[in-house]
């Protein structure tokens, strides 16, 4: 990166200031510059992919305009963006918490599916309970089932050392089959249907829509408060509580944490359970707030997108919130793009994947964008 010297046109005072605050500067680069460059580079590459598949330039222009309009261009767009970001942020918080504790939980998808199913089953089992009680009961069921399902991987890792990546992948695959089976059970399956689909969440179990007074089509629901509460809770848990300190310590250096008297097995199980609870909550919020029922694959890859989100947000609750809003915006804008410009929404998946490549390989971003970084910045840090 020696060539970047010439590109640097900062005045002397600025450079001195930079040197004095070089530590802060590096953190700033890591937290802000890398993600911003990553998003920009991914959007540019997305445009190139559109070009390669025979989409002409005006259409590309229109699709980016539609992307912007569909994500923040109107009240409806903002409502859709926020609605899409709710489960993403909730699941992303769980994954970020896992990363902090040194656990790579790929199983959010399965935890989300089973948590959401538990929420549906719980709410339609007690249709006579009054509104807030039934809603809370559903959310609780989702969180508990998600936590229990994730704990399987946690307990296996703590007692036998089974790697959580493999066990959570397997638990995901198991959950897909399990859901398929559950949705065909007479108690759960919707009456008169032969395909696997569950009964509906009764009105008392739904997360109420917030903006129906303005326009009945606005789908933003009370899950947004749940999301904000979860952000605050995870922030408190990670940075202000004793168990959160244990999570971070065992993530940073498991041996040091163990010598300091932390019980590593307990930390692993607790971290996995908390992550699973958040993923289960994401599933519950999705079925109680948006979908109203469970069907195969209702998670729609949220559990995998959440991995990207947690990386982009640097496993920090506020970062995850921002990343979740961005991904929610891409999701909502992508739908608009498909309608307006006829460009498939699958493009959003490509952009999301590219964002993580650039985030997770800071060396690569620095190689592509040598400017914007202080000289000799150290890369290769794990997210």
């Amino acid at each position, binding site marked *: 990166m020696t060539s970047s010297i010439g590109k640097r046109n900062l005045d002397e005072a600025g450079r001195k200031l930079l040197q004095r605050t070089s530590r802060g500067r590096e953190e700033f680069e890591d937290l802000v510059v890398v993600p911003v460059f990553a998003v920009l580079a991914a959007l540019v590459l997305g445009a190139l992919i559109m070009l390669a598949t025979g989409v002409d330039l005006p259409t590309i222009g229109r699709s980016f305009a539609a992307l912007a309009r569909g994500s923040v261009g109107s009240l409806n767009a903002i409502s859709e963006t926020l609605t899409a970001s709710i489960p993403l942020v909730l699941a992303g918080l769980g994954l970020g918490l896992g990363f902090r504790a040194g656990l790579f939980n790929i199983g959010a998808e399965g935890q989300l599916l089973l948590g959401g199913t538990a929420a549906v089953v719980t709410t339609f089992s007690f249709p006579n309970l009054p509104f807030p009680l039934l809603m809370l009961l559903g959310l609780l069921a989702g969180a508990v089932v998600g936590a229990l399902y994730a704990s399987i991987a946690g307990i296996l890792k703590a007692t036998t050392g089974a*790697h959580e990546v493999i*066990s959570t992948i397997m638990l995901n*695959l198991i959950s897909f*089959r*399990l859901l398929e089976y559950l949705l065909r059970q007479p108690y759960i399956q919707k009456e008169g249907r032969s395909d696997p689909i569950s009964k509906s969440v009764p009105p008392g179990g739904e997360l109420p829509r917030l903006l129906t007074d303005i326009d009945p089509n606005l789908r933003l629901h009370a899950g947004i408060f749940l999301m904000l509460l979860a952000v605050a809770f995870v922030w408190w848990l990670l940075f202000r509580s004793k168990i959160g300190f244990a999570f971070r310590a065992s993530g940073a250096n498991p041996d040091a944490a163990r010598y300091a008297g932390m019980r590593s097995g307990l930390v692993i199980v607790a971290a996995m359970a908390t992550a699973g609870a958040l993923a289960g909550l994401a599933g519950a919020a999705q079925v109680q707030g948006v979908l109203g029922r469970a069907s195969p694959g209702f998670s729609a890859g949220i559990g995998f997108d959440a991995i990207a989100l947690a990386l982009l947000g640097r496993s920090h609750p506020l970062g995850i919130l921002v990343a979740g809003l961005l991904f929610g915006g891409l999701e909502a804008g992508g739908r608009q793009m498909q309608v307006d410009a006829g*460009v498939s929404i699958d493009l959003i*998946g490509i952009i999301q*994947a590219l964002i993580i490549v650039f985030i997770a390989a800071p060396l690569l971003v620095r190689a592509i964008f040598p400017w914007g970084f202080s000289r000799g910045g150290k890369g290769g840090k794990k997210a």
Partner: protein
Amino acid sequence: MSAVTAEHKSAGAVAEASRRARQARVAGTLLIGLALLVLFVLNVGHGEVATFKLSRPRDAIVLPDLVVPGDFNLLVAAVLAFLGVRQFLRGGVRWTALSLGIGLAIVVMAFLVWATAGKSFSLTGMLQATMVRAVPIALGGLAGVLSERVAVVNIAIEGMLLAGAFTGALVGSLLGSWVGLAAAVAVGGMFGLILAALVVTYRMDQIIAGVVINLFVLGVTSYVSSQVFADARWMNNAKVFRAWKIPVLGDIPVIGPMLFNQNLFVYGALILVAIATYYLFHTKGGLRARAVGEHPRAADTLGVDVYRTRYLHVTLAGMVAGFGGAWFTLGSVGRFDENMTGGRGFIGLAAMIFGRWHPVGALSAALIFGFADSIQQKLALLNTPIPSEFLGMAPYIATIIVVAGLIGKSRPPAADGQPYTKE
């Protein structure tokens, strides 16, 4: 393994002995549980028979049907109970794996007898289907073996399979199946190279790199298939490789149709497994590769180029996975559908672990998974009361059990997943 001898041994040996004793107990409990399962759930009425067809009427050599009386299952239950009790009485340290293997094999037989009781069932057809379904899993597992033997964890197999399937369909439609196959192998290799670059040169976390490649390939292939293929169907309509019957060998009853009357991909998978086994365990290059996987520092000191070895093998792994991916389109339906690999790459990863990071092991595990897969299809036809979903879960549950080391021990290469920085 009595306490007296254990006292003289190191702490590690004691732990090892207690681990083995635990395994023997777990295996014994499992075997007795299976005996009860066969006795009470899989019981066939006295006098009922299960008919297995061993050949088709048109075959060159026609074998008579195999007729098994229902009392066979009582015998199976007795054998299982004997093996289980023996685990507890003798500690069973040496025979744990063998007993379990025999136990599981006869449980499967008992299951088939129970499911077909009073009906007839083509054993040959099911074995042939097993082999076909095992192909992508075996090739995925082999790709996993090649990259993990040089200590690069390869979660991206799923994406490589999908990329191979997509390229096979696209290029196969435009330029013919053989070019399509070559392109699928090349694109698989390209993703292997990308994975190697990300983890070796850019030192990205190996699991994140794998997840990213999976997401990226899924995104690109789904995007192109809905953006381009939806309008231009001729770009997604490749000619499929037909089965080639090997003369003489293909006429052997039962194993002939399974092994010698298949398409290119089945033969390819078997040959690749053989080559990989010979290469990894009987050549200089293979020894160096394994050294890089076990102790990269030592290998480096002895003059093995760790980075180059990793690049080479992960690229080769990608090519194998690309070949396996082409099976989905060029070896089966000729058309690409969004996410058509459906997690087969992850099952390949499971097969690799199950097969203890050995090509032949991965192939055997893939055959077991393929068997579970094809039996699941047959179950619906036979109208058994067991939900097919649970049978579908069995391979994953078995993998978790193996990873957790509850039964048997599967040890990854020592440096697996760790980046290496040259000094």
